[in-house]
């Protein structure tokens, strides 16, 4: 059963259609990328999943049940635009947010202590939020998002404003939570992170879903039969005329091969023509390329 299933979601603001018949499923325990250019309708989808907004039509299932308010306690959401009460102390602020997620006062305090220790920031407890730097408050925000042990975690641009060390800390934590079975929706513009982190993605543009699938599968699906060959020695010019050469320099060759052929065929051809191959790679498109291509095609 999937953690979350969106079925034919439609949401309009006046005449503007923010979500246009969007359906997809998010498998349990996976890290799921929700991608799209600015204004594609990602935030609207997230807000419907977190029940800040309601769809005009369509349904959302959480573990197979119709999504309702009780599920918000099992969801953690870190919005892109985030903030905290400036005049509250770190400790009491985290306790407050944890209690709003349904923890008892005592439980909330206990978990806050655990997390502050885990991130080695117990000395922040009595600090006012306004004394924290952006990166520091980001950490606090992350703790607030995960403190109630959610089954579903929604992270909207979680790394923005973080230095590489803290980025790594959060990334490790994301993988750690994923291993524990938490389903994670990860929304970002930074495609290299998507390749590193996500198992599956859905791509939305102008309120519509335009692509979905596993990261590996999509790369296969959109590959253009391109190969990179490194060689030593010379190549006879006549041989290259048979291939579609994308680039050639300094003993490295990038070629596009006919769709129906396999890489092995190319390798065989090279060997037959006495090319001394030192390395041979298939070039797969990056998610970034797929993203740009799909958005432009739309």
């Amino acid at each position, binding site marked *: 059963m999937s953690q979350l299933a969106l079925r034919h979601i439609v949401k309009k603001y006046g005449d503007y259609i923010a979500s246009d018949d969007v359906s997809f499923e998010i498998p349990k325990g996976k890290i799921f990328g929700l991608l799209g250019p600015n204004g594609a309708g990602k935030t609207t989808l997230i807000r419907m999943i977190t029940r800040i907004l309601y769809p005009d039509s369509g349904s959302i299932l959480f573990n197979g049940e119709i999504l309702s308010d009780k599920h918000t306690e099992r969801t953690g959401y870190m919005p892109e*635009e985030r903030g905290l009460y400036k005049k509250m102390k770190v400790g009491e602020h985290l306790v407050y947010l944890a209690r709003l997620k349904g923890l008892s006062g005592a439980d909330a305090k206990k978990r806050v202590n655990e997390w502050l220790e885990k991130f080695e920031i117990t000395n922040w407890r009595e600090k006012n939020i306004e004394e924290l730097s952006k990166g520091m408050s980001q950490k606090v925000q992350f703790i607030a998002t995960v403190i109630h042990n959610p089954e579903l975690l929604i992270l909207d641009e979680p790394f923005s404003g973080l230095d590489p060390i803290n980025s790594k800390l959060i990334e490790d934590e994301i993988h750690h939570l994923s291993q524990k079975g938490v389903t994670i929706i990860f929304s970002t513009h930074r495609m290299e992170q998507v390749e590193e982190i996500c198992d599956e993605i859905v791509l939305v543009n102008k309120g519509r879903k335009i692509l979905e699938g596993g990261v590996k599968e999509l790369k296969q699906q959109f590959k253009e039969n391109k190969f990179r060959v490194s060689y030593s020695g010379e190549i006879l010019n006549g041989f290259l005329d048979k291939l579609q050469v994308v680039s050639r320099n300094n003993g490295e060759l990038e070629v596009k091969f006919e769709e129906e052929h396999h890489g092995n065929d190319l390798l065989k051809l090279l060997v037959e023509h006495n090319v001394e191959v030192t390395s041979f790679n298939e070039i797969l498109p990056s998610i970034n390329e797929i993203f740009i291509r799909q958005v432009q095609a739309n």
Partner: protein
Amino acid sequence: MGKIFIIIQREYITRVRRKSFLITTLLAPLGFFLLIASSVLISTFSQGKTHVAIVDESGLFKDIPIPDADDQSVYFHRVTENYDDLLSEVTKEESAKYEALIFIPADFNVNTPNNPAIAYRYVKRPGMIKQQFINQRMTDVLQKLRMKMLQVDEQQIEDMQQKVKLNFESLDNSKEKQGYTDAAAIVGMVMGFAIYISLFFYGTMIMKGVMEEKSNRIVEVLTSSVQPFQLLMGKILGVGAVGLTQFVLWIILMFGVNLFSGVLFGIAMGSGAGMGELKNSGLDADDLLIVTQNLSALPIAQIVILFPLYFLGGFFLYGSLFAAVGAAMGEDGDQQSLMVPITIPIIISIFIAINVINNPDSSLGFWGSIIPFTSPIVMCALLPFRPEWWQILLSIVLLIGGFVLTTYVAAKIYRVGILMYGKKIKMSELVRWIFSKG
């Protein structure tokens, strides 16, 4: 309900803990007394002294006394100097003895006192109150002159001018003593003003709280945990609790002050009733004594029950609207104009209340005490005058209906507004949100 309670707790604790809460709680009564003191001082010092020379060419007034003003603002000096000399002195010399001249022409005729008219010539224009006073004084003087011409003597005049003071006594309430109406007016006005000020004070507090949450974007985190309606109610109830705490502390402080000085109580009562209004109506220390004597005749039980009820009713009705405006406002708090539709009915209420204490039976008072947007203030001003029980009941039912309606409307606006960034919101858009389905 559990989550609303957690929100109320936070709103309450973070506010009560602030230094500003302590300061306003302690200083507001002090500020209140300063306000009274300053209004007394202002009325004393605002009147400059004016020395007026009276040139009586007709000679008719020479035996008629022209007394100076009691408040030492105007002095009359009968002079024998030549009018033209005086005139040039007054206009040219800054250190002239007189600031103005009253010229009674030689052909002045008591039968047609405005033709030729008496002239008041000045360099510095007297204010409206001074003009009225001088005019009245000259009218009195003319009256005395005519009486003298008719050979009516002083005693006869005094006998003629005797005033009656009726004993106004209630037939159904023996405790009402002389001056009950004054007492009722003062108590009513104090209650009306208390609600008026607290609506603005705590309304703004709610609005600022909402704007803070919107501008620092925590609202997005909060709304993923709780319903916007819970957030709205938590904030309103939390600030309401702060308000009640402050009220109780003020009452305790007032009684504390009262222990030191019984007189202060009287002053507080008198001037709380809207400073100028009551002073203008001519209340003095004797009247205040009458007020304290009449306190026991006031419908205390009704007031004790209904005043907090109207306070809360008005607070809920307007509190939710202030929250809606806070949600609709831009992040930098511009678009103050969105506040106008809320502030106008509150201001109208206090004007009706001022009118009502003078005319408790007017239809303006009746409608003002019934309509939910004005009833919290107007009905409180009316309570000491014992309005009909059905009028109170109707007013309460409508008030409850009113705040259910405004809360519904406000919640709709709030829901959409808190998540709307970087956009100027027009009034027409707010209306559209109210009718949208979430």
